[in-house]
């Protein structure tokens, strides 16, 4: 197990290196000049030159990459061209919001998706199966921002039981925090739960047709034991992998929802940075996303190994 873990971590290092190279080079290919953006349309050439010098924009590419990487090694991702805050500061402000949102959404998605998937599988072809699949289709095909607007209209405007937008930090007021999170998290979670429900259903159906399920029934076990002890463990394997992927998607794909609910999250940070040619922020954010994805994959592999004894003890 330790070897497996070390191996996986060892593999992450070259991956992060490649990501950093790609992020850095793509950034240089983006049209537009950050110095121009900062100085404004009417700026004098002298001001632009000053800005270029200050942010080392005229250094050769390789030198700039070298400086960037050296900075990262010291926990320095540079300074936002726009707000003058350090990128690390910005990220540590925004990431918790998105992380909380994505985690809540994932909890909703897993709870709902897995239980609906199991119900659909065991009542295959029956009314319960039909209802579950309809809900999944609805969740998958309904655009999140649209559902978000409907939610706001219903819960915030009409019934006034939840705040329409805004964000209260968890540390400030946990209850208000939850109230501000529940709508965006549900909107995000519903879409993901559809995908998870479908995968759970098909994995469960596949597993239920296995010989060992018949063996379990031959022991006289109740259907509940057969499903939760014997089948679900095996059906969980593909769902774990999917869950990690979906969680990564949630972390990086909350932009629209964050916009609809005015959440000061990571997605909004990245989009603003791209529009403002705020190189340092974009680079830092993408690198951060890549690392999170890799960690999620690692976590999924560990969870997979925990459920699947064939991968253990290697």
């Amino acid at each position: 197990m330790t070897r497996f873990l070390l191996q996986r971590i060892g593999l992450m290092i070259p991956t992060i290196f490649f990501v950093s190279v790609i992020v850095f080079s793509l950034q240089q290919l983006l049209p537009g000049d950050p110095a121009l953006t900062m100085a404004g349309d009417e700026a004098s050439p002298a001001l632009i030159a000053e800005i270029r010098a200050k942010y080392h924009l005229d250094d050769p590419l390789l030198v700039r990459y070298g400086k960037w990487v050296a900075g990262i090694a010291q926990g320095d991702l540079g300074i936002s061209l726009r707000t003058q805050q350090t990128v690390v500061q910005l990220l540590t402000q925004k990431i918790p919001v998105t992380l909380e949102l994505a985690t809540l959404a994932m909890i909703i998605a897993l709870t709902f998706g897995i239980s609906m998937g199991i119900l659909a599988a065991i009542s295959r072809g029956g009314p319960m199966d039909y209802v579950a699949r309809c809900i999944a289709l609805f969740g998958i095909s309904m655009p999140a921002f649209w559902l978000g607007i409907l939610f706001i209209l219903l819960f915030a405007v009409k019934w006034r039981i939840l705040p329409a937008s805004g964000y209260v930090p968890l540390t400030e007021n946990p209850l208000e925090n939850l109230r501000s999170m529940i709508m965006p998290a549900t909107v995000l979670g519903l879409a993901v739960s559809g995908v998870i429900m479908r995968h759970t259903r098909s994995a469960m159906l596949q597993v239920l047709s296995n010989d060992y399920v018949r063996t379990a029934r031959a022991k006289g076990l109740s259907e509940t034991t057969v499903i939760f002890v014997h089948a679900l463990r095996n059906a969980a394997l593909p769902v774990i992998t999917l869950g990690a992927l979906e969680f990564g998607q949630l972390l990086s794909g909350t932009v629209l929802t964050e916009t609809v609910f005015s959440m000061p999250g990571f997605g909004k940070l990245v989009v603003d940075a791209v529009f403002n040619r705020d190189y340092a922020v974009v680079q830092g954010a993408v690198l951060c996303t890549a690392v999170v994805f890799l960690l999620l994959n690692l976590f999924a592999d560990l969870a997979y190994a925990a459920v699947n004894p064939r991968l253990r003890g290697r």
Partner: protein
Amino acid sequence: MSPYVLDCIHPFARGPLPAKTGKTLLFAQQAGRIEPRTASGKATAWQSEGPPQFLLDVRDLRVTSSGGYPLVDGVSFTLNRGETLGIVGESGCGKSLTSLALMGLLPPGMSVSGQVEFEGADLLKLAPATVRDLRGDRLAMIFQDPMTSLNPTLTVGYQIAEGLIRHRGCDRREARDRSIELLRKVKLPAAERRFDEYPHQLSGGMRQRVMIAMALICQPALLIADEPTTALDVTVQAQILDLLAELKDDLGSAMIFISHDLGVVAENVDRVAVLYAGRLVEEGPTRSLFEQPQHPYTIGLMGSIPRIDTTSEWLPAIAGTLPLASDPPPGCRFEPRCPFAGDKCREESPDLAEVSAGHRAACWKAPL
């Protein structure tokens, strides 16, 4: 070891065929070549006096596919306590479905009718929860493929102990001790260590030992073994067969032993039932059935047992294939492949009729 367990091939596997087939050859095969010995030598129901009290009394068992075709078609047999019944027939003739019907484990969509009286109660009429209480406790089953029949994500120990926890209300500690004890009995090497291992860490033979332990953990009155050795190496097969015979005698369990290989059955059972295309075509005490087979299909099956004295030559297998369940022949099911078939066979299906004491055959030409 008897000659016919030396080499196990599918009964209908083709070797070099002699040019001549048909009546003369089929009869030639009977000539005292097979010498069965009764597995436990116990008296069968037919030999005992007074009204027999059966452990299992199956009457007119029918399994119908979701498409409405008969897959098991009116099978009846009985089983005494401690007795071993062999069910033979080529692949696809309904052996597994018969046993699954007894266990109440038929695939979804299939329907079952008839009567399965086990320890005095009709399993087909009992509430599902009551059948679940019996399953794994009073009647248990070993499946053909030990590679796929064990749950890959649970330890083998847990999978055995589970039965005790379910049916005997044992706590984990006691269930563990008793499971390890049984693992020793099924001669699993390093039983204590193996208890905590997963199926993928065990060989096929060891897994089948685990399956056997799993089935016997509650000391069932009836054990159904569906081709328990077919998926195993030849060397392991004989060990597993011996083990099964030994354990069932120990526990006093009755056994239904299913095989496509008449040779394997001859060694291990008190009585033999021959299935063909979902029907019981012959049934009787092992000795009587092997010495005087009455149904042409049984004779054909014997013809496919490899001969020890002429190693290079195989006796003819039965030509042709099983009829489709969706399109059975109107008369005798075996008629399209039968060298003895006459006009009556094409029109009317023969019923089982007694040919000698306790020996029944369904053939217009029987007794031969």
